[in-house]
């Protein structure tokens, strides 16, 4: 999700930023962030599935690297976090035989225990940037069989930015469209086309249009109408990473309680795709 952009947003929200940042810092100090329990020395229960959220740094200032929404300042990486993962975990436990953890987990790519989480989730990656260490760590992670799902970035500029950093990770690999004919779309549920899930701020129960507004994203955004899934395939034809572009799948998880109409129209599509992707990743 993106809320506000560019220099104007930065100027307006500067004062708010300072106070909100201070609040965020306090939350980090107490170890509580968005409902996530404090990290302790107790190892994570790896007998359950954890969809680990990737913590990354972003380019720019207010409206770019971070934004203000619902009374607090958000960094790009934490968009939809942790409610999206918590809701997804519940639905996975209900709909599938996967034993998913309900406690959210977030990691930097350079964390030593990154390998404990063979499925990483990144959101709002349009302003993302990697350090050399992060690039190397992600490359090693993918080579080991780990899987990356990048979600919620819209328009041409955000794709170009994301693609540029990912090219440093796997220079010889190119993104390819994952067509609806791919087995992933029939793994558990039959999905005929890639769903477009907008942030709930862009739609209401009467909306026909599902694309977000170009002005809300990094220019030049181009057309945002077509949602797609693009993939990195390894030398054996196995998917290593997917990028769900021009769609915000995790918002469908996060906002499932927003309203009945939203759940019916968007969350069900998000969960169907989420179940399929995760089941596919855990079997290939």
């Amino acid at each position, binding site marked *: 999700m993106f809320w506000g952009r560019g220099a104007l947003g930065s100027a307006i929200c500067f004062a708010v930023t300072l106070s909100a940042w201070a609040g965020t810092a306090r939350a980090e100090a107490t170890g509580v962030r968005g409902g996530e329990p404090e990290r302790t020395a107790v190892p994570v229960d*790896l007998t359950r599935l954890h969809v680990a959220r990737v913590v990354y740094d972003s380019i720019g200032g207010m409206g770019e690297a971070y934004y203000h929404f619902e009374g607090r300042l958000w960094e790009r990486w934490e968009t939809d976090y942790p409610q999206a993962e918590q809701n997804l975990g519940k639905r996975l436990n209900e709909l599938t*035989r996967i034993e998913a953890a309900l406690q959210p987990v977030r990691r930097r790519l350079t964390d030593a225990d990154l390998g404990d989480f063979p499925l990483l989730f990144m959101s709002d990656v349009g302003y993302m940037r990697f350090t050399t260490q992060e690039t190397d760590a992600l490359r090693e992670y993918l080579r080991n069989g780990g899987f990356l799902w990048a979600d919620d970035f819209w328009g041409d500029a955000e794709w170009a930015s994301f693609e540029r950093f990912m090219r440093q990770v796997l220079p010889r690999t190119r993104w390819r469209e994952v067509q609806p004919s791919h087995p992933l779309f029939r793994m558990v549920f039959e999905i005929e086309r890639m769903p477009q899930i907008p942030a709930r701020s862009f739609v209401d129960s009467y909306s026909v249009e599902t694309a977000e507004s170009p002005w809300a994203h990094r220019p030049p955004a181009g057309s945002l109408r077509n949602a797609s899934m693009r993939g990195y395939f390894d030398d054996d034809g196995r998917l290593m990473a997917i990028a769900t572009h021009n769609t915000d799948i995790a918002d469908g998880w996060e906002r499932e309680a927003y309203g009945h109409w939203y759940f019916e129209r968007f969350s069900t599509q998000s969960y169907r795709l989420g179940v399929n992707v995760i089941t596919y990743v855990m079997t290939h």
Partner: protein
Amino acid sequence: MVEWLFKYPVDVFRQGEVVFAPWFDGSGVLRVLALILLFGLLASVLVGARLRGLPLGRRLLIGAWQAAFVGVVLILLARPMLELSTLAPGANSVAVLVDVSASMGLPAGDAARSRLDAAVAALDEGLLPALSGLASVSTFSFAAAAERRAIDGLAADQPDTHLLGAVQQVLESFRGAPLAAVVVLTDGADTDVAAPDIALLANAGVPVHTVGVGPLALPGEVEIDDVALPARAPPDSRVVAQLTVRHAGAGEVLLKVRDGERLLAAETLTLAAGATAARHALSFDSGPGGIRELTFEIDAPAGDRLTQNNRMRRLLTVSDRRHRVLYLEGEPRWEYKFIRRALAGDDVIELNSWLRTTDRKTYRQDVSGADELSEGFPRSLEALYAYDVVVLGSLAATYLDDDAHRRLERFIGERGGSLIALAGRDALADGGWDVKPLADALPVRLERLDGGSYGSVRGRVRLTREGANSPVTQLLGGEGGDPWTTLPELADYQRLGGLKPAATTLLQVLIDDRPLPLLVVQPYGLGTSAVLATASTWRWRMATPADDNRHGLFWRQLLRQLAETAQPPRDLAVDVGGGAVEVRLTERDAAFVPRSDASARAEVTGPDRATRTIALTPTAAPGAFAARFVPDAPGVYRIDVTVDATAEPLTRFVRVGAENREYQHAVRNDALLRRLAAVTGGRSWAVEDATAIPAALRFSAAGVTQRERLPLWDMPALFLLLVLLKSGEWLLRRHWRRI
């Protein structure tokens, strides 16, 4: 000295019987005894009269002393003789066997002279002429068999020593002829693995005299005594060879295994002081499918003068057959994904998996057709028996009906397949697998625990001693270090009950410093069952560098070895023994029901490329066929067995006789030589004493003999006894001051 005192050798007294003059026989003995008693009493009275005042006891002692003297004189007057059989002059034969095996070319001792030279010298320098004066002498050389020939120009160049077989052969060749004795000159280093029972040689009644040549020990000697290697191995897997090294001293030696010129593995073995043998497990990669002729060798240490026994060759058939593995999983989880990845593209293992994705949906992967596993667990024995291994994941026992449970148990026990059960929420005890019949097959007893037996816990893996020797758990070889302790910790564990009596723990996990069984295997019926009490080996892939392949190696190795031990429906075994090759075929149909109505033939191709066809005949066992052939020459033989002329032939290779055992433990085997002589009534001689053999043979009871009486009255021992008796009496009386 003894022989001088008693005039004849001790053996002569053993064979003969002491007789006396006719008047002394029968009641004469009683009369003489009465006479001695009477004389003793008389002497006591007379002595008492002359030696008044001497106590009664001393008088009786003097009387007994004199009675003994008179008794000895009377024995001399009775003309004692030794009656025994002696060889009839000119009527008998003596067979002399000389060992011409290769070990007889080794030094006889410190001198440069060979053992054969020492034996021939003993014959030339007195033994043969003396024997010729006693009987007709027939000389033989022997190695694998005896051959009648002169002893001139013998060469120690034969690859076998069949000592007992050669003696038996000579005894049979003289059957009906007057053979007085067999004399064998040998080092006793027998190499015959099918030697006749030594006790049977005594039935001929001919004494065998053995003459041992060669040293009893070789200082500094190190040799490969044996290499135990599985006949077959899966391709690109770790193979474990058990080497037995015999040694006479302490130190370190380098063990190597080569495939042709290519070095496969090299490891250092420490030889302990005070021990005579050491065992070592040497592991190496089997390589691609095909036949391998492997050479195991020791780098000769300083002081090891006999280097011919530092290498040993073995054949290894690396299977090129693909094995099918059925993986049943009850929930999507990372272990499933990474096991599948480890086996992806494997040349040997074809992994077919069936997974419950939701309560109502299942997902099949890499099945061979639309029908395979379409109904879940195979519904017929034929369909289930098409697999070699079943991997049982986190799948509740109640998901399978009773028939499926019985089929799975029969898959292991009757079909000879392998089962490995993994840990999980619905696995083992928590999955309800503690019920018969499958619970009987598992290597551990499953116990339900309050709160479940499966959970999140960290623990590091440790290889057990049994695991170190098992091909199942050979991660890396020859590179030093322990590849197990450096693996990332496991993240879960399922507690097991007690181990069954036949179970073997190959891997343990250390949880709170307590070692707990992790990988346990056991034979069950014709097959193998195993339990792996974790489902987090995927960390070995995800938490290691990308070029660390231990996770893949572990799973490929584990499943390949389990698959290799699984019984194929058609099996062919070839063994060498007793100079012949045994071919045994087991023929079963797809449901593993033995077929006895088949017709089978074997095409044998020898080292000279010549082929011959032999028929296999049914044996008493159902579905079993056998044939036997005697190889013409040493070398590698190829055997192709065809059943009903339609099925694809089964092929095996076997090496015959090319392994030279002559230099194995090539010291004088005194124990065997003594036993051979003792069992047959002969004697064991040192080569330097061999010239005394003819004198001993003169009194042989075998052959044509005559009864002969040897006088004993003039034995120096008797005259010495008389002198001692009178001297003793004189000393006593002097001591008592009665002289």
